[in-house]
């Protein structure tokens, strides 16, 4: 084991899979000569050359579609969106072409592709640059969505995504790129299955569901609640699709209480979906309504104070946890 950054973990995942399979290639804006706007693809151009690591024009719909076409022909593209806010100009390609091809062709064409890049609000980037796109893509049948919160998950989920024969979105986080954590040594193949969440901390009183940017605040909220005598079980979804309902249900059926900490906008968001599933499955065993902690429902303001007021926070999570415990 060693300590590496989330950025480094993603970089290793791509390098290992490109070593392993000559059909895997990476394309996107600034991924080659610039080594990535966030340096996630550092060194890959040098290692694999300009045919397998390609700088694209600022044409998201064009290069996303190009990658889908290449996947139809049997290649395994990894598409980097500089951020998923920019994937909105490629929205039709991602939700219409990638996930529908298998059905429309009667099973003849599957699309082994990964769309990856930072997703969700970063820091003071304003309304156009702060989109948390997971609910938009989760609504489309045929897409899988991974949301790693740690370097280990980042590496293991991205490697699995690249090997998956279906379109997979790996939603990273700009704010996590510099965080570090322990990851298996490179010799050991690290594959983390899509659709399996993880118990980050076990507890008995409340289930606290989180993913990506909300995991760290959820953990410290749980720590604090422990000092208040409340035992919080923290579940990191790791994937939003497939959703690990078994894990969610088994936890909530023990704790009878649940809070969902999500980084996206609330309306038709990830929390709504999970809450629906829980109340339907565990109606009789719930001791309190499921609560979500999400963004305030406004376009993201630039001002720092207002932005943090919009975002989920440890404080807001603590409030919700306290509320479901009727304290």
């Amino acid at each position, binding site marked *: 084991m060693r300590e590496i950054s989330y950025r480094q973990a993603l970089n290793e995942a791509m390098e290992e899979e490109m070593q392993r399979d000559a059909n895997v290639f990476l394309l996107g804006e600034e991924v080659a000569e610039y080594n990535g706007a966030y340096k996630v693809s550092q060194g890959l151009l040098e290692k694999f050359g300009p045919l397998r690591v390609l700088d694209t024009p600022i*044409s998201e*719909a064009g290069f996303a579609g*190009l990658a889908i*076409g*290449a*996947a139809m*022909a049997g290649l395994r593209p990894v598409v980097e969106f500089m951020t998923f806010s920019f994937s909105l100009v490629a929205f039709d390609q991602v939700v219409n*072409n990638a996930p529908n091809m298998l059905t429309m062709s*009667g099973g003849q064409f599957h699309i082994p592709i990964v769309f990856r890049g930072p997703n969700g609000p970063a820091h003071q980037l304003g309304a156009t640059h702060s989109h948390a796109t997971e609910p938009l893509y989760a609504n489309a049948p045929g897409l899988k969505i991974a949301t790693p919160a740690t370097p280990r998950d980042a590496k293991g989920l991205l490697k699995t995504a690249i090997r998956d024969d279906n379109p997979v979105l790996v939603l990273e986080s700009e704010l996590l790129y510099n965080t570090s954590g322990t990851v298996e040594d490179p010799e050991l193949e690290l594959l983390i299955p899509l659709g399996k969440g993880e118990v980050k901390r076990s507890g008995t009183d409340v289930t606290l569901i989180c993913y990506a940017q909300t995991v760290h605040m959820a953990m410290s909220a749980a720590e604090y609640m422990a000092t208040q005598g409340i035992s919080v079980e923290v579940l990191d979804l790791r994937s939003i699709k497939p959703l690990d309902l078994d894990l969610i249900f088994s936890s909530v059926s023990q704790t009878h209480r649940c809070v969902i900490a999500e980084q996206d906008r609330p309306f038709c968001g990830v929390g709504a979906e999970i809450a629906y599933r829980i109340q339907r499955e565990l109606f009789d065993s719930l001791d309190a309504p499921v609560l979500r902690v999400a963004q305030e429902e406004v376009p993201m303001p630039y001002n720092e104070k207002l932005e943090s007021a919009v975002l989920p926070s440890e404080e807001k999570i603590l409030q919700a946890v306290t509320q479901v415990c009727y304290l």
Partner: protein
Amino acid sequence: PVDELDLLYRMLLIRRFEERASQSYQQQKIGGFCHLYIGQEAVAVGAVAASRDDDYIITAYRDHGHAIARGTSLNACMAELYGKTTGCSRGLGGSMHYFDRANHMYGGHAIVGGHLPLATGLAFASKYRGEDRCTLCFFGDGAVNQGAFHEALNLAALWKLPVVFVCENNLFGMGTHVERAASVKELTNRAKGYDMPSMIFNGMDVRQVHDGLRTVLDAIRRRPHPYFVEARTYRYRGHSMSDPATYRTKEELEKNKEEDPIARLKSELLSEGKIDEAKFQEMDREARRLSTEAVRFAEESPEPALESLHDNTFVSGANS
């Protein structure tokens, strides 16, 4: 040298197939949208005949002609319209989404302009693998105003991808004349925006389409690069089965029918003594027979099982 009788026969197959399909549609045995290719047969037939069997073919929703030109059976084409498991897309795609992997027909795509980036991806795969397979991408005059068209042509030109963009200019995007949609006098001016070579073909003359495309494809195989082709053609029917096409005059339609690609090649071959009327009638009878047979086949074919509903959302098992 191309088998010119085969060009004629394939055009007849498309024509008779679609005449049959429109009957079945009117009998409400076919659902959804149905866009007929009648009148434009020379473009798909000439271009596909000029291509190599392993070249990639991709087109829009007006796709019956391209599939048939590529060798998809009339049975599979008709069964698809009927939504049967024996259809070329197993009954899941419908008229707008024909696919035939075995014949390298990569669809059948119904979002205008949305498949042009896919075409660059197919061409990119050839470049990536060092293969000399070309991609033929068909689309309409209305598609040249979509952002995806622009991004695809720029990428193809920038990366020197082996793809021919074949714009089938039938003068109308639905009811809108090309002059009310594209700001250019000549659609080939669009290619200038990418420093991409281009050519205009008479899309009613299958020999011209074939010979022109053959030259273009040979050049691309020698030195990979994209090419823009405008094929001037005309659709006889409405935009789709539900369109009365009142936006054009009967005279305009009749005038264009005088250019009919089948009649044209037939008379040329007759005057060149390459066929006689009897031979033509025989080919036409065969095309009609296969179309009628296709209807029977489609009607007798099974529907997909309800239990299969969730079988095509994800392909199971990761590759290795």
